[in-house]
Every structure is written in C-alpha cells, then in structure tokens.
C-alpha cells in the first residue's frame, strides 16, 4: 500500500489554513507532522481521515485492494472516542467488532498498554492518561495499515510514551504506516517530518479586526476554485478576507 499526498491545501471557514503539502508514505514509514498551534496539523489529519474535504490537491491510495482510505486507517484524535458509561473492555470489544479485521483481543490490547487491571472499570472512572491509553489500545484490536494519530502523547506519562513508541515501531516493522502530529518528539526511527506553516500575514489586513467577511462582500472576495494556483494569491494587491486572525494561537 502506498499513500501519496499531492499539493494539498486546506480551507476552513473560507480561510486558507495551509497549502502545498506533499508527501508519500510507503509501508513501514512514519511521518511526523509538526507546526505551531493552529497551523493545521489536525486539519491535515482530518483530511486524511476523510472528515474534511481538501480545498485543492489530491490524496492517492495505491494497492489498497479496493478499500477506501477511511477503511484502511485508524484515527486517534483529541477526543478519545470512548463511551464513558462502558468499560474499557467493552469499548475495545465494540471497536474490534465494528471496524472489522480483528487483531488482538480487548484484554490483550489493554495488557499491551499496561491497563489490564482497568478492563472492567467504566471509562468514566479513568484518568485522562488512562483514557488516552485505552484509545491507543484501539489501534491494536483491529488491523489497519495506516494509523493517524493526533498528538498521541498528550496526557501520557514517560513510561506510556515509551510503550507507545514500541507499539508504533512494531506496527511499522509489520509493514504499517504511521502519521502523527506532535509537539513532543516521538523518537521514531527514520521518521519523515513535515512542518506545516500558516500563510504569512499580509501586512495590510491588520485593520480588519479579525472578523471574517462573508462571500460577496467587497471587491476582493472572489472565491478561489480548487484548481486555482495558490501562489498567485500571494501577489494579490488587495488584502484577502480576514486573515488578521491568522496570527492567533
């Protein structure tokens, strides 16, 4: 399987978040996505997971046996996707049955992240780090070649971070692919790294007060089509929409 991303751009709320992102992932490779807060790391993962549509660019998946991209991946995001009323084991059993291609049993997966003792506790009773580990144990209960991890180490202690690293490395040795956004180093072997940058702030847009203007307001607000070359926007004489917010966070 091979995932290639070509010149991807992302727009949210009619504001360009990033553009020109390209990379290729082959079996066994890992990609670490870095960037400032709000740079669009999560948005990139959201696009890969099929939750957001890219403004332009292409995502190609080769040799995937007629599976769509969402069927080939695990996604562990900021929200742990766990049901607080169900036990850790029930949550994982559901994911295993629901996602298909079952791998480890829920107990074994919890054992692998060091949470075997909490299997019968409702997730509501677990701490943030423990919940994150249950969410990561979901990676192990179903076979999926591509793992998308959005800041997987948040709330994890150092021991758990090391466990996570070992899990990721063994997934890669088995031919899996990992794409993770992170602020703290993951210490993955030979990982590719891309840095996502927000578009530079146009100096003349500072007076707009940060409010986004609606389409059709003002002369410069012609919507750019997906095929539009993003570079030509840089030289636009008028300020583009409310990019005054871009400097936040």
């Amino acid at each position, binding site marked *: 399987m091979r995932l290639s991303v070509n010149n991807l751009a992302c727009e949210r709320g009619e504001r360009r978040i990033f553009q020109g992102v390209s990379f290729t992932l082959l079996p066994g490779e890992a990609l670490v996505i870095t960037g400032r807060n709000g740079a669009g790391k999560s948005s990139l993962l959201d696009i890969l*997971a*099929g*939750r*957001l*549509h890219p403004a332009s660019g292409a995502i190609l998946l080769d040799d995937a046996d007629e*599976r769509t991209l*969402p*069927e080939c*991946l*695990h*996604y562990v*995001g*900021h*929200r*742990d*996707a*766990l*049901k*607080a*009323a*169900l036990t850790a084991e*029930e949550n994982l059993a*559901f*994911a295993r*049955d*629901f*996602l*298909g291609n079952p791998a480890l049993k829920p107990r074994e997966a919890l054992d692998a992240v060091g949470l075997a003792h909490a299997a019968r506790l409702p997730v509501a009773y677990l701490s943030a780090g423990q919940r994150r580990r249950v969410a990561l144990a*979901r990676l192990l209960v179903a076979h*999926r070649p591509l793992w998308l991890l959005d800041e997987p180490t948040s709330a994890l202690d150092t021991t758990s971070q090391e466990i996570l690293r070992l899990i990721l490395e063994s997934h890669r040795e088995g031919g899996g692919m990992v794409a993770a956004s992170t602020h703290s180093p993951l210490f993955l072997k030979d990982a590719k790294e891309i840095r996502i940058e927000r578009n530079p702030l146009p100096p003349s847009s500072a007076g707009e007060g940060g409010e986004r203007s609606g389409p059709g307001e003002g002369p410069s607000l012609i919507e750019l089509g997906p095929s539009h070359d993003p570079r030509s926007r840089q030289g636009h004489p008028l300020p583009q929409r409310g990019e005054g917010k871009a400097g936040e966070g």
Partner: protein
Amino acid sequence: MLRSFNALLVRDLKLAARVGGSGVMGLIFFLMIVTLIPFALGPDLNLLSRIGPAILWIAALLATLIGLDRLFQADQEDGSLDLLRLSHAPLEIVVLAKVIAYWLVTGLPLALAAPFLGFLVALSPEAMLAMVATLMVGTPALTFIGAVGAALTSSLRRGGLILAILVLPFMIPTLIFGVSAANAAVGGTIPFMTPFLVLMALSLIAAVVGTVGAAAALRSGE
C-alpha cells in the same frame, strides 16, 4: 457489514441500559403526560375515552422527541462519530443501527406500555389493542423522521429545540393517521385498515428516506 451493524446496535442498547442512559427517559415522560391529563380534565370518562387515543399519541410523539437530540450529538461530542466513519459499512448502516436501537428503547416500550396507560384515559379493551398496534407501527416513522433532524443538528450545542421545530411538521401525518386508525378501531365510519395501512406506508417511507437523509446530513456536516 452485518457485524458492524450488530456491534453498534448492541453498544447503543448497552449505553441506554447504563446509568445516565436514555433508556427509560422516554417512557417516564410518556407516563407523566398521560397521568397528568386526566387530572387536568376531570373525571369525565366519556370525554377521556373519546380523546384518549389522541392523548396517547401526542404523548408518544413528545416522548420520542425528547431524547432524540442526543442520538448523534453524544457520538459527535466524544469523537465516536469519527470512529463510526471508519467502518467498512456505509454510514447508512450506522444510522440504521442507531435508529433501531433508539426505537427499541423508546418506541417499543411506549407501545407495550400503552394498555396500562390506557386505563388512565378510560380506553376500552379494543381501543387499547388498537393503541398498541398503531404505536408499534407508527413510532418507527417518528423515530426515522426525527433521525434526520438529529443528524442535521448533531453539531449544534443546543440542537434540541431546532430539532423539534425541524421535524415536528413532518411528524404530523403520522400523528393524524395514527390517531384516526386508533379511533377507527372503536367505531366510526372508516374501516380500521384504511388509516392503519397508510400508517404502515408512512413508516416504510420514513425508514428509507430517514436513513438515507440522516446519513447524508452526517456526511455534509463534517
């Protein structure tokens, strides 16, 4: 695909049964409305038995609506909806499993409780049977129609009111034919089967349109 469907159905039923689940909420709400009305109207048994089917149907409609805003919102909030998108099964199957689970814990208990609550509004035995039959056949329509609204409002913080405003107009035909079928069973000029078959048709149409519509709403609400 069937495996995913079953897994989700079982999960939602478990969640409804747990503490804080929506399992009995609809039933208790149903009970509250039907209990209050005889006190408000007074002990006029003829009046009560005449408007009884209508009371039960309105109560069932409101009871179906009350927990509906959480149908997809709960999954949206804790990130489970992202997980549900990663299945081999299409989103329609996901919607179908969730709606069926919701109906099993709200619509079905309402229909089964109708005879007992029928005592409170002085229904005759035939009318009680007719209530069970019409609620059993009609509440799926309410649930499927409501699911579209629930999917549309899943990402809104306070979607409950907007949901009610959105879906209530579409629930009115079900209400009309449900009540008229129940009334036809105890007398009147039209045969019972005429409105009852229309009610069945409404449920079948809602099952198809609601499933596809809710899945489309979830897809576009990303």
